[in-house]
């Protein structure tokens, strides 16, 4: 059966309504059903988006930290978001929310990604130091891997690169 609204997709949702003793049937596809007022009403207040599930992970019992009297006082200074808003839809309001709610975000970030230490790209304007540290750490981990695999030629190359990078640091310092 085709959807009564778009006439394109298969109808998968079948709604029977009895209004004033009159029976009314509707056959809609999933997409049109999602937009229909009947279904909107039915799912009101229930969030099936990512937020609806993140709340579960992120929620728990919010820890009240020292100096944090009530949760209401803890709105993000840039966008005004409360941590409760975040629990509702799983989305943050601005970049500064990450520092405002850092203590409460760390655990959930670990639960999602298994860690909360970024080791990837760094914006070039973040300054050279951070970038160099990251590069150094990366080279060192590559060196360890090469040694483990007994790839000594590669290891020697990496060792030279690390030395070069460190020497450059010393010179600049």
């Amino acid at each position, binding site marked *: 059966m*085709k959807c009564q609204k*778009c*006439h*394109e*997709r*298969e109808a998968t949702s079948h709604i029977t309504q009895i209004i004033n003793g009159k029976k009314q049937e509707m056959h809609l596809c*999933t997409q049109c059903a999602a937009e229909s007022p009947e279904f909107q009403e039915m799912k009101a207040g229930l969030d099936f988006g*990512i937020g609806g599930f*993140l709340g579960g992970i992120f929620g728990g019992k919010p820890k009240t930290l020292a100096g944090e009297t009530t949760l209401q006082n803890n709105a993000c200074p*840039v*966008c*005004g*978001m409360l941590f409760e808003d975040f629990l509702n839809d*799983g*989305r*943050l*309001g*601005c*970049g*500064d929310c*990450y*520092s405002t709610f850092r203590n409460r*975000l760390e655990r*959930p*970030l670990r639960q*999602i*990604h*298994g*860690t*909360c*230490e*970024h*080791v*990837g*790209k*760094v*914006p*070039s*304007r*973040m300054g050279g130091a*951070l970038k160099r540290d990251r590069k150094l750490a*990366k080279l060192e981990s590559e060196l360890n891997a090469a040694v483990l695999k007994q790839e000594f030629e590669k290891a020697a190359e990496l060792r030279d690169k690390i030395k070069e990078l460190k020497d450059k640091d010393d010179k600049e310092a």
Partner: protein
Amino acid sequence: MMWYTECGKDGDVVLSSRVRLARNLKGIPFPARADEKQQEEVLTRCKNAVLESGSTLADTVKYIDLSVMQDYEKQAIAERHLISPQMMDSRIKRGLLLSDDNRLSILLNEEDHIRIQAMAAGFDLDACFSLADRVDDLIEESVEYAFDEQIGYLTCCPTNAGTGMRASVMVHLPGLTISGTINQMIDSLSQLGVTVRGLFGEGSKATGYLYQISNQLTLGAAEEDILEKFKQIVESVIGKEREMRTRLYNTDKYKLEDRLMRSYGILSHAVLLSSEEAMKRLSDVRMGIELGIIKNIKLEQLNEVTYEILPANIMLKYNLPDANERDLKRAEIVRERMCS
């Protein structure tokens, strides 16, 4: 020819590859919490960061204001995967920077201020990443990103934080679907931090056996390492799909041939075609070409017609708001392509 009609590396399984980087401007609330003025500011600053950069890229990119477009026009761009369905919502001021070859599309004010998307035909995530990375550097020359030394790039949804990078491939998996092994694979891959979802259908029931596979973890590993691991997983999916197709073919050659040729027959002669039926039949013909059973059509032709017949794309080109008229037009287009 656009990337979505080309047939690239491993094109018998992988239709296209994409790398997306999520970025936000420092000090401005994310689009959903920004006021109109702030939304405008994001659009202007990002637009200028690219168009006035003086780089060679600037000459090949055009700015498109989504707020002045009709819904079906936006839908047509979304059907070609150049914008996400989320960009359709007009309550937020949104814009798009699109390169002439459509390989690069920068979504402005989607869930994040900036979403750099780089796309390529076939299995070519390296090309996508290197383009997205270059564009990221270019934009960063003139704007300051929301970035945290510990957490990395800050995004609206914490599931994107860190690298902000999502890599994905669009794949055709009739072998794994028909043999019923796909669900087990979806479960296994999810444990490896990789998501599989149907492309033109709901949930794991994909219309036309087309799926999108993407990485879930964005934090804790460098971009190159995330990509490398993801590429290895996709490679093993490609291997399993090819193996399963061969096994299906060897088990009951005539039954499979019959099924694929019947679809070919229907597409060559049908008078009315719904988009759902067209997708299913085209998938069969695709499999026929991939197995070497159908020889007079090329995958490129098939890719082209697959996008051409999507509802909003027909609407846009032929101005047919009525679904029945579109079914008639769709059948006509497909017949022409199948017989040429």
